[in-house]
């Protein structure tokens, strides 16, 4: 089982850029020599990776916006917070392994970049 990130501050790598592509109507992650097509959730998580939010905060943000959209759609199935936190942690560690996200354990470290 992957470790659950709590008080970590993920930040999109400097080389990476997020873009909503109007032509394809898809969220993209742009990298040197690579384009990654993202799903809605991945894009919403990465958009919050600014180095100033903890994984906890990001999870709460994502949950809140999901709640809003599911309420609008009238559906009920929404994963609980802990499950979401585990999913988001796992996703961010994958992103870190790829070198697309940098994860600081201390919020002050990223301010020097």
């Amino acid at each position, binding site marked *: 089982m992957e470790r659950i990130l709590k008080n970590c501050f993920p930040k999109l790598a400097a080389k990476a850029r997020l873009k909503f592509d109007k032509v394809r109507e898809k969220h993209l992650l742009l990298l040197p*020599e690579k384009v990654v097509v993202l799903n809605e959730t991945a894009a919403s998580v990465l958009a919050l990776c600014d180095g100033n939010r903890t994984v906890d905060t990001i999870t709460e943000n994502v949950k809140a916006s999901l709640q809003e959209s599911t309420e609008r759609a009238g559906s009920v199935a929404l994963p609980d917070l802990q499950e979401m936190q585990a999913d988001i942690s796992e996703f961010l560690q994958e992103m870190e392994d790829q070198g697309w996200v940098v994860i600081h354990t201390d919020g002050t470290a990223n301010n020097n970049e």
Partner: protein
Amino acid sequence: MAQPITTSKNVVEPPYSLLAELTHRCPLHCPYCSNPINMVSERGELSNEDWCRVLSEAADLGVVEVHFSGGEPLLKDGLDCLIRHADRLEMYTNLITSGIGLTAEKAIQLKEAGLANVQVSFQAGEAKLSDRIGGYKAFEKKKEAVKAVKKAELHLSLNVVLHRMNMDHLDEVIQLAEEMGAERLELANTQYYNWALLNRKRLLPDRKQIERASKIYEAAKARLKKKMEIIWVIPDYYASTPKPCMGGWGAIGLTVAPDGVVLPCPTAGIIESLSFENVRESSLRHIWYESESFNRFRGENWMPEPCRSCDFRHEDRGGCRCQAFALTGDAHATDPVCQRSPQHQLIEKVVQDANRKPIAKSSPMIYRKYLLDKK
């Protein structure tokens, strides 16, 4: 009128990337250069106004990454304006450069214009060999350029084309990349088109060189994991299956040559049996979706046997059309690199020669020359 468009999915998707070859002018004379033998003169180059239009059309078409290349793109006046224009169009910008002319001020200026990544070429890991291969005293200047890139806090990739002359010095190349703080290193085995094809006898390594080099690459990749991404571009003459053509002919990206000719890949201009359209006369959208040249090798209907009934056709797409044309004279032929190609002996013969000791040095190395304006 244009033929109905058919690909394997029967739909042509928008392109992701644009290779903008701003000029063929270049201070280096690398004998493996993939630029055409007959280069575009400075007078024949597109203006920056043309390029801005091309960038806007590309963005509308769905292009999200632009690679500014050449020749040496820094020789194009107004490069910073083009980068700024692409950045405003929310395209990811990459500069592919020899590093010559990339001062600290220039690097900062380009970063401010929106440049995201710089790829600097090296010919080898040390000055003497590097300068001999490039035919120009470039090595120290390149190191200065790399320092400028790092100082401007731009993402740095190094690219080294591998061949017989530098293959045995891969350790030094990797060490150089580490010392310079490269975040990505591309080890690109020479692809034999244009100048490289002219010099193939002198450039094609032997099997043992490839085996040693690929072990060094594997070890470095495992050791450097997160620190530096290392890419190994396969030496296709030593592979049993051909490389897929740029992810498919007219599938992922397009190239605009210095004179505005639009190509499915940087070397497609060698295919004499096709005529390619120009951005001076047609829109990029028309060329991408409607042109005869871009539709010719889309999908699988064009394939001859043995490709047509081969299980690998979805993966390798029949191989490289440029290589098929360059080696057999027929752009529709199966890539001779493939073991199933009826013309595979063309490759076997060259590989045999490269592995015979000692190698005949009867053919001189022909260095890339940029011809000044032809009257």
